[in-house]
């Protein structure tokens, strides 16, 4: 475990270095943030002053070095736009995104797993066929389009759920969370559903494929030969085995969930980091972009770690092989 962690950390540092370098060069090539941020009526003197103040007058390599120096001390710089430490800005917004992503994952599992099980157990049942065909929709419909449909249906026409925003939040562990209040939950439901659509399909398909692959295996037959009840066979023997690919894939998907949150957040005006990063890219707010990507990579490493732990818990074979 320690070994794995160390390896991952060393890798993550490499990845971060590489990525920051790419971002520095890339953003430099795209344009000068000052041109975007500065008012259209600001004169040369003020412009020069601001450029100097942001440190953008230095050659790129100097800028990068001073960024690295700062980063070593945990300072990723101030956002050009918000004039706040980038990291603080991200940390303010990230809980909302995480909450959304996790809620989407939870919905995907809660809805997808039973349906997938059913479709896998009775693959020839018309209902299963419908579900499997329907799950293709989850892959084919663009998120933004579904998002608006959801709003139209559930907010505008039916008026059941709010159309946008985050609702009431509660402070916990130094961050604001909305899943702890009824109002917050109501606000969370639609965007989470929207974001989870792709994942639901994925879970359904993984589960049903897993069931179909597991059922004919010898050990399932052996479990039946032992006289176990179908409930126990499916609930313990089959489920434990399909959880393994499920956890791995969902873990990998977490990154893309956070990425796609950008779209959902902008449709549902969800005040998360996705919206922030979108705006930051549009305004070339480099400290925020770099900070965000660093946080994401760290998050990814963490998620990978969790997945790996889960994976080891679920699949004892891996446990031994890797530590042996």
């Amino acid at each position, binding site marked *: 475990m320690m070994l794995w962690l160390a390896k991952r950390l060393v890798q993550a540092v490499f990845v971060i270095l590489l990525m920051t370098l790419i971002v520095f060069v890339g953003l430099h090539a795209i344009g000068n943030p000052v041109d975007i941020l500065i008012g259209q009526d600001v004169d040369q003197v003020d412009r020069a002053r601001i450029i100097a103040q942001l440190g953008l007058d230095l050659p790129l390599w100097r800028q990068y070095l001073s960024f690295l120096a700062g980063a070593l001390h945990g300072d990723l710089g101030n956002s050009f736009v918000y004039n706040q430490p980038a990291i603080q800005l991200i940390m303010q917004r990230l809980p909302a995104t995480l909450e959304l992503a996790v809620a989407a994952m939870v919905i995907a599992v809660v809805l997808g797993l039973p349906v997938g099980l059913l479709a896998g157990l009775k693959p020839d049942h018309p209902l299963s066929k419908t579900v499997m065909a329907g799950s293709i929709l989850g892959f084919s419909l663009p998120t933004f389009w579904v998002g608006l449909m959801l709003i139209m249906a559930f907010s505008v026409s039916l008026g059941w759920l709010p159309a946008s925003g985050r609702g009431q939040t509660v402070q916990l562990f130094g961050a604001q969370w909305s899943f702890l209040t009824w109002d917050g939950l109501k606000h969370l439901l639609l965007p989470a559903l929207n974001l989870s659509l792709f994942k639901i399909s994925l879970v359904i398909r993984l589960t049903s494929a897993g069931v179909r692959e597991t059922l004919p295996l010898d050990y399932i037959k052996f479990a039946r030969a032992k006289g176990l009840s179908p409930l126990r066979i499916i609930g313990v023997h089959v489920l434990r*085995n399909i959880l393994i690919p499920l956890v791995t894939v969902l873990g990998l998907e977490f990154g893309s969930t956070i990425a796609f949150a950008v779209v959902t957040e902008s449709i549902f005006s969800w005040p998360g980091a996705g919206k922030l990063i979108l705006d930051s890219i549009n305004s070339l707010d480099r400290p925020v972009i770099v900070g965000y990507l660093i946080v994401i990579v760290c998050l990814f490493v963490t998620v990978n770690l969790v997945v790996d732990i889960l994976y080891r818990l679920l699949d004892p074979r891996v446990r*031994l092989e890797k530590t042996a």
Partner: protein
Amino acid sequence: MSADKLLEVRGLRTHFSTRAGAVAAVDEVSFGLERGKILGLVGESGSGKSVTGFSIMRLIDPPGRIVAGEILFKGRDLLRLREKEMQHLRGNRIAMIFQDPMMTLNPVLRVDVQMIETVLAHSNTSRARARELARDTLGAMGISSPEERLMAYPHQLSGGMRQRVAIAIALLHRPELIIADEPTTALDVTIQGQILSEVQNLTRQYGTSLIWITHDLSVVAGLADEIAVMYAGRIVEQGGVDDVLDRPLHPYTLGLLNSLPSSNRHGRRLNQIPGMAPNLLALPAGCAFFERCTRRTVQCEQQRPALDPHGNGHAVRCFHPIGQEVPA
């Protein structure tokens, strides 16, 4: 039906429907087994040995189906039981051991979980008692430090150890009948010896009946009381082990025995059976062995032979059994 027969299979037919047509994997199979006896079921790959075993357990999955026959276990027809009742018998009165020790245990569950759940499935004991029982049974299978093995995952055990765990699971409820489907084929000779000796002890001790499925005639020779030879879904010869192996009646049985290297002089060509096993989808109208048989006649091509008794429980499905003159 004699009262001391534990199991009596009559006219069992199991078919698989495939896109190319129905496969008669088991066709007209009948045999009986007394308490405490060991039946060796032999035949080459695809001859329907496993399907016979699974049919008795009623573990045939679609596209397979038991089409006809009776399976009388202590006089009750298993094919008429409701699924719930059958579930109660499985692992309890009738148990099965599979061929591949690497695949029979669920890789993600610890040994104790897999044993205890079996105990609890058929009796209302406490978890602790179930665990004790599991441990004791493992011990009886010649596994050293069973307490530690209980905590292991299957992959941490060697193949032989895993197969012994599987056998222990089968034995948990002291079943009256065990169906062992090639349980030592994947194992080494020395390990096979260990397992065979444990099995022998157990049948002797508890009077359990055993159906030992294998393609290895030598193993059956050393272990079984009776023997049934299958070919293309049918039993072609059956009887006491000495009768069948020493005085085979069916040309196929003879061919098998003759092709064993030990039956031939060192370095000489082996006596081989020409040709290959027939395609179950396109069985000839007459005897399934017709094409490969040296004693075939026109009758064999047209008529299907029945399993005729030849005294002393020895029966053969052949018009021209060994020892009889073949009409020219």
